[in-house]
């Protein structure tokens, strides 16, 4: 019974991490694309100004909020099950969820090469945890 509750809590945490992390990734990617190449901007305007630009972005702040949610869901999951389950499960599912989300929301060109890469990495991460 305790084992069942532990597993249920762990999988609830995995689902929360994947959802929050994918949403956060998409929001942060959108924010950083709007800001521009950080390396170039840092040379032109300095690091402080780049940090201010990021902190002034609504997408960035919402993305950080989602990442914080993902982080605490991860801590919750890790307190219920091993990192060998939580780590690979969240990482591999997030790879696939991000590929779908990036195509839909960021209009990225996810060609067969990128799909193959996402699936190979997701599969590889699972095998490494077995």
């Amino acid at each position, binding site marked *: 019974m305790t084992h069942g509750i532990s597993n249920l*809590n762990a999988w609830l945490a995995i689902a929360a991490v994947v959802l929050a992390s994918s949403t956060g*990734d*998409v929001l*942060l*990617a959108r924010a*950083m*694309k709007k*800001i*521009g*190449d*950080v*390396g170039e901007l840092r040379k032109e305007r300095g690091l402080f100004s780049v940090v201010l630009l*990021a902190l002034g972005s609504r997408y960035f702040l919402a993305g950080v909020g989602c*990442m914080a949610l993902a*982080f*605490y869901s*991860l*801590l*919750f999951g*890790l*307190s*219920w099950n*091993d*990192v060998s389950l939580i*780590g690979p499960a969240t*990482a591999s599912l*997030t*790879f696939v969820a*991000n*590929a779908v989300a*990036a*195509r839909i929301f*960021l*209009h*990225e*060109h*996810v*060609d067969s*090469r*990128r799909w*193959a*890469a*996402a*699936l*190979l*990495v997701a*599969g*590889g*991460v*699972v*095998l*490494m*945890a*077995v």
Partner: protein
Amino acid sequence: MTFPKYLILAGVSIFAPLGDSLLSYGMKQVGNVSLQHIASLLLAIINPWVALGILLLLGFFACYMTALSWADLTYVLPASSLGYVLLALIARFALHEHVTVTRWLGIALVSSGVGFVTQGPERTRHPSEPSARAVVARPSR
């Protein structure tokens, strides 16, 4: 892709798995956190291993944001997943742990995925971007 950009991707690869491992070690010391005592998660950051893990994850975050400013999300994520391979190699050659055939197969799959994605362009050019407009405006032969 320039050398500093590869260094940024390496930062994403290294800081994330190391930070996760330290968090895991720290959370094992903190113990199970129930939904009824969810506030105790906030106190978990007092644990030094959790705190060090958070510090490494901040380094990861800075590198990750920089990478996302010049590359697609679907490029950065697979390209920066070599950290998993790195952890397995450290386990085998530095810690002398037994790495199973299945795990080596996993390493091969992750490496192939990284190889696949890094051969392609790092960014999708949308028609609204200046450099893309220049390409579109150039007459094709």
